């Protein structure tokens, strides 16, 4: 009987996961077809025209370049910063200061950079107004705290201190030990986060429109333009462009694997050299400048938006009128976002844990891109497919369906944060627990879950913020019955009222900021305890 129930539960678990994984795939399979609005013949006839589209090649190259450079540079910078700060007392302060930056939308960061540093900005650094460099820079700057957050979640599960001591015993400098001993593992475990950042860069629209080049535009802008077009030609182009996008994703993933392979081999090779990584150590020291720079930047952006939202630049005096006027209308969207974020964040964590545990029991971990399908596939097509299916089954426009549309994304991010820490926890402790007479699940809960708590908190915070950031699913599946702070903020940001845009971006950042602060505070507390025990 017990085994039957156990099998049933395991079966249900797999079924649940299968559903979450297949949702994006089903979405894209349905959504990619232009349906009755363009025939198959039109698709085929338009292929040569698509291939000859002026600027297609450079567009694709721009996007590929950005999708590889921004995440990798962001990751290396984050790791350098981490090596410099991890064992300094200021680390905890810094971790806390990550929160506001993590929760600012990418668009807000891009707008802030433009406002602060471009020609006509407050401090002229000659940052090109619209160029691939600015686009890459804006995304990189925003990804650094994300990677720091992910790295610190991984780090909590590895005995870094011990490794560094061993490194010293072997005669390496501390900085060299970081790169030679810690980096390869962190890189491997951050692979999924790199995938996610890469896929994001490849498909991001708002930031590309604002600071990206447009002669020619980056590829995501072209895709959007065609996908929202009407003619048979536009829709056919959209079909081919989406296929191209999927191929580009594949190539980018492949490149990231290659990078990992080369980089780990390189460090292994360097490890046997006489005094390795002198240059890198020097470069890493530059990362010390990151903390003050970064604090100034995030402070600058938030201050800019705060001042904007009280009309500092648009009148002699500033006033709270805008806040008073809008407050009445933003409460419902804020609450909607909060509920969705909390619920999908929680469900995302549970599903990610189920996925990891079932794979552990099955002793086989499926390829990562399967689990990250929701992040990797082109979102507009995926959600359009869902919208079609949702219409076919006559689904309601309620919280439940909005949740269903958020969960694949939230799940994927929770999974990517949790996978590394989960896998790096060996079975030893649980075996000991079982030898003391605890059941499998008791041991799992008391040991594995408890040790994973910091990572789980991080994953929850990321999942929550991912849910908050969803514009397309909330709008397309909620059909306007379920306005969130993001659907409002994105609509407002499409206009030209910067004061109002600033206000909404601050509000939109508010909820994730709270959750990040809570997560970071709790995680460091739990972390402290477990360190005290060990």
């Amino acid at each position, binding site marked *: 009987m017990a085994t039957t129930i156990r099998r049933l539960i395991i079966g249900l678990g797999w079924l649940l996961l299968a559903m979450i994984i297949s949702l994006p795939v089903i979405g894209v399979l349905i959504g990619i077809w232009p349906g009755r609005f363009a025939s198959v013949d039109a698709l085929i006839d338009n292929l040569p025209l698509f291939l000859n589209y002026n600027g297609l090649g450079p567009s694709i190259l721009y996007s590929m370049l950005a999708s590889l450079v921004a995440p990798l540079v962001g990751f290396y910078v984050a790791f350098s910063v981490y090596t410099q700060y991890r064992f300094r007392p200021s680390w905890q302060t810094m971790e806390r200061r990550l929160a506001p930056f993590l929760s600012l939308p990418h668009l807000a960061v891009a707008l802030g950079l433009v406002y602060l540093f471009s020609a006509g900005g407050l401090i002229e650094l000659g940052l090109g*107004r619209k160029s691939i460099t600015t686009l890459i820079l804006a995304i990189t700057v925003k990804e650094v705290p994300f990677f720091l957050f992910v790295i610190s979640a991984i780090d909590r599960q590895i005995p870094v201190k011990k490794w560094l001591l061993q490194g010293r015993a072997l005669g390496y400098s501390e900085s060299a030990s970081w790169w030679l001993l810690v980096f390869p593992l962190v890189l491997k475990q951050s692979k999924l986060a790199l995938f996610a950042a890469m896929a994001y860069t490849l498909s991001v629209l708002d930031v590309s429109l604002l600071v990206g080049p*447009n*002669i020619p535009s980056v590829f995501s802008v072209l895709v959007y333009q065609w996908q*929202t077009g*009407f003619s048979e030609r536009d829709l056919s182009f959209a079909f081919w462009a989406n296929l191209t996008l999927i191929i580009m994703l594949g190539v980018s993933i492949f490149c990231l694997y290659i990078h990992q392979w080369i980089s780990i081999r390189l460090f292994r090779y360097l490890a046997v050299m006489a005094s390795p990584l002198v240059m890198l150590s020097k470069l890493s020291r530059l990362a010390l400048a990151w903390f003050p720079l970064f604090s100034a930047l995030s402070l600058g952006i938030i201050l800019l938006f705060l001042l904007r939202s009280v009309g500092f630049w648009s009148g002699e005096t500033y006033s709270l009128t805008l806040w008073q006027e809008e407050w009445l209308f933003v409460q419902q969207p804020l609450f909607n976002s909060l509920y969705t974020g909390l619920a999908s964040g929680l469900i995302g964590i549970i599903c990610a844990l189920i996925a990891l545990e079932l794979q552990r029991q099955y002793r086989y971990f499926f390829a990562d891109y399967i689990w990250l399908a929701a992040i990797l596939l082109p979102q507009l097509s995926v959600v*359009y497919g869902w*919208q079609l299916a949702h219409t076919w089954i006559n689904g309601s426009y309620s919280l439940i369906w909005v949740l269903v549309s958020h969960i694949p994304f939230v799940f994927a991010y929770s999974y990517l944060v949790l996978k590394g820490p989960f896998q790096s926890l060996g079975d030893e402790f649980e075996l000991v627990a079982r030898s003391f007479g605890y059941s499998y699940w008791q041991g799992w809960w008391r040991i594995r879950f408890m040790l994973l708590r910091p990572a789980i908190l991080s994953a929850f915070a990321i999942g929550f913020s991912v849910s908050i950031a969803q514009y397309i699913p909330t*709008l397309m599946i909620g059909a306007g019955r379920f306005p969130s702070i993001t659907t*409002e903020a994105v*609509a407002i940001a499409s206009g030209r009222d910067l004061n109002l845009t600033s206000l909404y971006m601050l509000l939109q950042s508010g909820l994730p900021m709270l959750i990040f602060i809570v997560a970071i505070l709790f995680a460091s507390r739990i972390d402290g305890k477990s360190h005290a025990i060990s």
Partner: protein
Amino acid sequence: MSAASYQRKLSFLLIVLALFFCTIQHASAKLDESADKWQNTLSVARGQTVFFYAWGGSKPINDYLRWASRQILTEYGVRLKHVKVADISEAVSRLKAEDGKKSAIDLVWINGENFAFLKQHQLLLGNLWEYIPNTRLLATDVLPLDADFGVKMDGFEVPWGVGQFNFIVSKAMASATSVTAESLLNLAKTHPQQLSYPRPPEFHGSTFLKQLLVELSNQDERLFKPATNKSKAELLPKFWAYLDKLHPFLWQQGEAFPSSSSEQMLLFQQRQLLLTVSFNPNQLHRDIAANAIPADSSLMYFEQGSITNSHNLAIPKGAPSKEGAKIVINFLLSERAQKRKLEGEWGDPSVISELQNTDSSLPSQQELHSSWQQVIEDAWQQRYGA
């Protein structure tokens, strides 16, 4: 004259009279009927909720709709919910997915290509002009309100407001109110790197190009008919030659363009550009009043007339609250609502006869046939897009 002839005349007269009375009676019956129908609509609509998909990027517009919702709720018991979208194509995409079946959208704010597409695929409710009493107030005699970018409305949408393409310019550049292609080129030469236009196919950018094309081809009639290979070959070369001359003097030497009118406004506010674009002739005063732009900015438009078009309201075929949506349209066309739209913060020109004053509108230029838009956008991409 014979008696027979009299008789014939008399009977003819009688027949005419009879016909006349019949028509009158018929007409009044029809009027009664439509009044009845409207009464019926009013009572069915009570309690309905109307989900209105409309661009949500402007505070004055959002505030105006908040005001309208309050009025409509108290007067008609209909709840108006503004579904804010960043781009109306999001609504069109939903209508595509629903394909005429039960819709989540009751009312949508559209024009141009969006309308043409929805009408062509029969996704909209027809006969709106017949059912909605206030459509009689529309200034069809002075405004081009029967077609939307060359596509006949045919009762599938109702005009709500008027757009007229214009520039807002900094005092540092010009004080003239009208501009020609030639004077614009001179301005670009004397103020290099400080002019630009939104990158086509953004619609402000495309309209800017259409203004130039109309002027450079002396308002050639063929521009208002479907583009043919011959007309393209004859009308376009001069236009491209002009752009070839203009682009090197534009912002970033024409190697990047603002992505939208919003971005161009941002650049204008940051004084990177001396000129920005708008479809609302009253925008200038509203922006000055809101301290968004310097007080000495001025309006500028093309001498041969501003391309003028309407932005409109339509009801999807599958809308669950069709009656409520009609009530909303009827209210939005009322003199009170149109007046507030014109005179309030939004300042959008009115579409009803009562409120046609010449002060707030610019000399108008007819829209080109919609086929030209595609032609220009494609060729622009080919020539300058990469």
